[in-house]
């Protein structure tokens, strides 16, 4: 592949802290290599700002290999930018060409207050897990792992739901800022496994209740969450959770699948 360099205009959300109002600021970056990652382009911009005696732009990032879920930029109107099944850190600059303008915002949701610039507080997700996103198994005396055979397709399905990295792109992409894809992925992962079965119903009820308390919106089946998910978490999980929840709240039924 031919490499090239480009000059870009960036319109980036700047916000001092949770209490103050934010605004867009415009920056120019020059000689960006098409081989860089999107976050490396931000590294260049920040080094430039520091050299000019200005404050760099705060953004969350850590593993830079698409698995920790820390990076969280809303790029030209899309959570994690234009690439399918890709986190911001894995988006590369060959997507762009010389002269492009790129608008970068933080995740926007009442439940994710901005800490600074592009950094948001996602502890609401931890609290949803605390409400029931686990199997109550103390350390120490678990039975032999192979004494619980699990059908391969169920194990695969549980794994597909468990692949969620908790980045919050689903919330950012949703016009209602709903956390249903995140929540349902965890509920599905655990409910699909025999070990998670005993707590299935109470888990669904408690996690949904916590989600409402945190101020996330309701799900109206738009599907932008699935479209923006870097790990391809399926909307089917939401349908499964809904059956589970209704079964738990109204008594009979619920999904055994």
């Amino acid at each position, binding site marked *: 592949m031919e490499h090239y360099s480009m000059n870009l205009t960036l319109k980036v959300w700047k916000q001092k802290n949770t209490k103050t109002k934010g605004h867009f600021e415009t920056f120019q970056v020059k000689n960006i290599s098409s081989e860089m990652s999107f976050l490396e382009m931000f590294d260049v911009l920040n080094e430039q700002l520091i050299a000019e005696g200005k404050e760099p732009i705060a953004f969350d990032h850590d593993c830079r290999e698409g*698995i920790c879920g*820390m990076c969280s930029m809303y790029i030209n109107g899309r959570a994690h930018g234009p690439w399918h099944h890709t986190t911001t850190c894995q988006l590369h600059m060959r997507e762009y060409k010389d002269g492009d303008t790129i608008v970068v915002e933080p995740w926007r949701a009442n439940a994710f207050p901005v800490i600074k610039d592009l950094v948001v507080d996602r502890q609401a997700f931890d609290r949803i897990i605390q409400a029931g996103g*686990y*199997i109550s198994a103390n*350390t120490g005396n678990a039975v032999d792992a192979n004494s619980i055979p699990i059908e391969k397709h169920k194990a695969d399905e549980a794994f597909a739901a468990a692949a969620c990295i908790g980045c919050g792109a689903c919330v950012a992409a949703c016009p209602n800022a709903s956390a249903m894809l995140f929540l349902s992925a965890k509920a599905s992962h655990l409910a699909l496994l025999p070990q998670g079965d005993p707590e299935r119903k109470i888990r669904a009820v408690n996690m949904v209740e916590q989600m409402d308390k945190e101020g996330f919106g309701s799900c109206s089946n738009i599907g932008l969450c699935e479209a923006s998910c870097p790990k391809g978490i399926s909307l089917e999980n939401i349908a499964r959770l809904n059956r589970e929840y209704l079964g738990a709240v109204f008594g009979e039924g619920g999904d055994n699948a």
Partner: protein
Amino acid sequence: MPLNSKIPQGELSQKWTTYKSTCKLVNPANKRQLEVIVIGTGLAGASAAASLGEMGYKVKTFCFQDSPRRAHSIAAQGGINAAKNYQNDGDSTYRLFYDTVKGGDYRSREGNVYRLAEVSANIIDQCVAQGVPFAREYGGLLSNRSFGGVQVQRTFYAAGQTGQQLLIGAYQALERQVALGNVTQYSRHEMLEVVIIDGKARGVIVRNLVTGELERHFGHAVLLCSGGYGNVFYLSTNAMGSNVTAAWKAHKSGAFFGNPCFTQIHPTCIPVSGDHQSKLTLMSESLRNDGRIWVPKKQGDTRKPNEIPVEERDYYLERRYPAFGNLVPRDVASRAAKERCDAGYGVGSSRQAVYLDFASAIERYGKIEAGKHGNHNPDAETVRQLGEEVVKEKYGNLFEMYEKITGEDPYKIPMRIYPAVHYTMGGLWVDYELMTTVPGLYALGEANFSDHGANRLGASALMQGLADGYFVIPYTLGNYLADDIRTKAIPTTHEAFEAAEKKVKERIETMMNIKGSESVESFHKRLGKIMWDKCGMARNAKGLAEAIEEIKALRKEFWANVRIPGEIKEYNPELDKAGRVADFLELGELMCKDALYRSESCGGHFREESQTEEGEALRKDDEFTLVAAWEYKGDSNFELHKEDLNYEVMHLTQRSYK
């Protein structure tokens, strides 16, 4: 101070059982009065905090990320070893122990490694009980795969995301304890000092990274589960935030540092693409089963790989190591790639890369597949198509990841790879109970030095983190705290807390007031270059001595000219990073001193002066069958303490690959 490893007496296989049966216990009512601080929430920290919370201790966890679930354990791809022998291929606790000690080139403790092998099977049981979705066979039972350096299939995995699934399992167990009120969790907090009272670790000073405020927290004991220090090299496969700060502060407060120079450099990573590279990404070692490694025979050849005829390619591993070819061990493959690139034969825009080419494998598999379909005279296009399908089945997800990062299709163009810093076997010195030389201060997981000797085997890091957290510390911590049940919580107004906080505050203020002209990032890069060039894959006395002086000079420059924007009392990632780089600037010097002292080659530590005629690592067992544990004595001063390694069961032999 004599180093006492506290390995229990008796036969190797009975040591841990004996320990567990005789160690002191703490009754439930007393546990509720005992407070434990856990720094870091990766596999070691999250599993320890969850287990201790379940037992009834009052636990506080701290992590610098925005959630405990982000810790870098999450990035481990391949799997986790356990001596389950589900495949009936002759595996056993002893065999896992044997492979691990040998893989570590005979520089680890027999007692520790045997315990690790012993509890490995319980880890898998525990994880399955928590709902970790390991890969399964059609019969519903767990699947295993092979990994490097062993002859059995003992690696459990969850696609290419084993670390993520294990960490989420431990994280969920931790969150359950948070909900039950047994654990209080602090995210976006960084530990900046250990508080020591009457010779015992009794708390920490942490900085709230959102507000910039310093906080004091008391604990009857402090557990450091803060990971490794590979980022001292600037470029590594570690996460951007991975750092040595917690371990380094502990070191400066009296905890000895064990074998700091032992670093693992992984041969197959996606290479640096330019000066702006921020981190390196691993490509699984399994690719070397089918890929052939080569560089052009001509120096500085700028032709595209497919334009270079076979006779103008140097398949240097096959040339130098005809017996093992492309499957030489990690350290050999890494050093050979560096040698070719240093000599001017590297490829890609940075010239710091070699090709890993699948064309031969695609052709070979294609012909076999065609033959299976009865086509014994297939055309080239059919062969290519069929061959690509086989390669996709085996390595599809890795090829996809490579393409995302580089924009090149590795089915058509050879991959470019280069070695990268991956893991640090060295770390805080701990005894059998995982306690450092400071009473009440423990180190778990990659933060300690204990189990991997001079080289870690693949799929063993996850095993060690969880062994320490789920199965070792719950016993050994009780043995210490049993004597502490009469100690009331010490108020954080105690003068030791005052003094520790003052020290942290002054250091931060000094750093902020420098107001120089060079960014933190720039200093980190310069340190990384010194470390990589002179304390990297191959080391020699001259280079190490130079590096020590260069690092000292760079440190001086840092404290005179670093520029940190923003304020102290706000969210300021540049300030956080500055503190970490300042610590790396001290650690780097110790690593070089340790590498200089250890004039033998062993595992990942290769001293050019100590090699066999064939260029392999040559150990000096008479002189160096020991742990080098360094005590901090003030500015640039480190005193060496030696812990002799006694091999009662294993026989030391020189590794040979030819």
